[in-house]
């Protein structure tokens, strides 16, 4: 996702508004409920965000329309927000790879903001592909769930066969060559110490360090953008990212803008296709705070 991919947002704005407003209330309500007794997750074998997404999608009959996807996306984000509000730490552990999903869903939200039927360039196609990618991932995940179930059955059936695995008959054991033993008690103790010592977990994926690298908070970036825009003067996206230290920060600011747009506190304006995107603050001065921003980006492990 690049800064340029934000180009057609201006026109997409109305569309997104319509979408949000048009989602039937019963659909929005039907996801997960917060009750006084606590959060209820009606999922069997919940192991992670994909499980949750699968469940949400199957609840909507896997209707691969943008509206259904939007609903799923919103419910997913709502679900995570609710968990965080309730300080359900375990769920955040479960969702430790959450960034993957969040990124895909964000792609998806961005794709939703595309004007219908208007595909202008490669970036637009990329956004639309993001939607397919999410489904591809979910289908892949589902496929692995299915083969896992098959493997479970096989393992269970196979465990009913016991291998003959008896100790070596004594007269054969006696024929084994005499053991060569060359360890002093001290050497043996050193060996034991090394063997008993808890292994420091090997570094997870050295090469991916930069991906998870310096955390950039979408919320912080949103606050920063908010402060700049609240000065009153519209700014171009180019200007807003001029001082970004890394691509990650550019991405974070873009995501932040999407969030601000969602909250209807900013408006976009674009004079010509591929031209500069101008961002304008539309909310009354102090009526907005970053507190309720989606926090999913903040919770990387």
């Amino acid at each position, binding site marked *: 996702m690049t800064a340029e991919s934000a180009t057609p947002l201006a026109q997409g704005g109305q569309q997104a508004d319509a979408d949000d407003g048009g989602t039937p209330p019963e659909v929005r309500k039907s996801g997960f409920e917060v009750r006084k007794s606590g959060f209820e997750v009606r999922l069997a074998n919940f192991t992670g965000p994909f499980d949750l997404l699968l469940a949400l999608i199957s609840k909507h009959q896997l209707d691969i329309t943008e509206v259904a996807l939007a609903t799923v996306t919103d419910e997913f984000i709502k679900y995570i927000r609710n968990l965080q509000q309730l300080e359900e730490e375990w769920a955040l552990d479960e969702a430790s790879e959450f960034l993957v999903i969040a990124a895909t869903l964000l792609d998806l939200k961005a794709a939703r903001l595309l004007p219908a039927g208007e595909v202008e360039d490669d970036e637009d196609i990329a956004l639309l592909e993001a939607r397919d990618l999410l489904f591809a991932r979910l289908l892949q995940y*589902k496929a692995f769930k299915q083969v896992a179930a098959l493997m479970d059955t096989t*393992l269970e059936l196979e465990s009913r066969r016991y291998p003959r695995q008896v100790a070596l008959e004594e007269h054969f054991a006696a024929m084994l060559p005499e053991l060569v033993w060359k360890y002093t008690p001290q050497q043996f103790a050193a060996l034991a110490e090394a063997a008993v010592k808890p292994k420091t977990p090997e570094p*997870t994926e050295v*090469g991916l360090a930069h991906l998870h690298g310096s955390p950039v908070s979408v919320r912080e970036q949103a606050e920063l953008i908010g402060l700049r825009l609240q000065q009153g003067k519209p700014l171009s996206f180019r200007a807003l990212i001029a001082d970004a230290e890394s691509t990650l920060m550019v991405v974070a600011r873009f995501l932040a803008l999407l969030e601000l747009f969602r909250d209807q506190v900013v408006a976009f304006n674009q004079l010509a296709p591929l031209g500069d995107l101008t961002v304008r603050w539309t909310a009354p001065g102090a009526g907005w705070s970053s507190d309720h921003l989606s926090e999913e980006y903040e919770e990387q492990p």
Partner: protein
Amino acid sequence: MRNTHQEPSPDDGLDVSGLPGGARSALEAVLMVLDQPASATDLAAGLNLTVDAVELLLLELQREYDGYTVKAPDMEIAREAGFTSSPRGFELRNVAGGWRIYSRAEFADIVGAFVLEGQTARLTQAALETLAVIAYRQPVSRARVSAIRGVNVDSVVRTLTQRGLIEDSGTDPESGAVLYRTTSYFLERMGIGSVAELPQISPHLPGLEGIEEFYDAGRM
């Protein structure tokens, strides 16, 4: 396990055919002391027979244990003589690239009461799914498995390693990440000869031929 494969030589002195029951019984005797599957090649070397001969004998024994009477040209006569063709309580199976004797599955409940050791608890859903991803995508890093499953898999991978179902298979030359693969114990537990015998995953993945490229395009 022996690694040297020698052709039978007449000087060797070992001639199984002269023993009671011949090569067939000798093979059976060796099968009795195995504590892991042995390949036909290893067995042939130990018995001083050709691999072909051993393979033939193994199949013959397998059929016999399954209740098919070998070398009985006339089952009518055999039945009159009181021979029944019921399967034995054990079976000879070719798993994980080797042959080994197992108690027959039908008797699991009875046998299980005698064999406490070696009984393994069922895998959790998380462990099964992780194992499935590793089995089908091996060699594979934890990060990749995590990406497919959408959750952190570190502790599950540790448990699967402890249980001997997966193992370290070196590091990825590019990322330096540890790669995992399934073990031959996994094949034994699945009762298959190689991972190629795992059920095809494609029917479960409709139209997802391109998923690999999507993944490898660098989206973690």
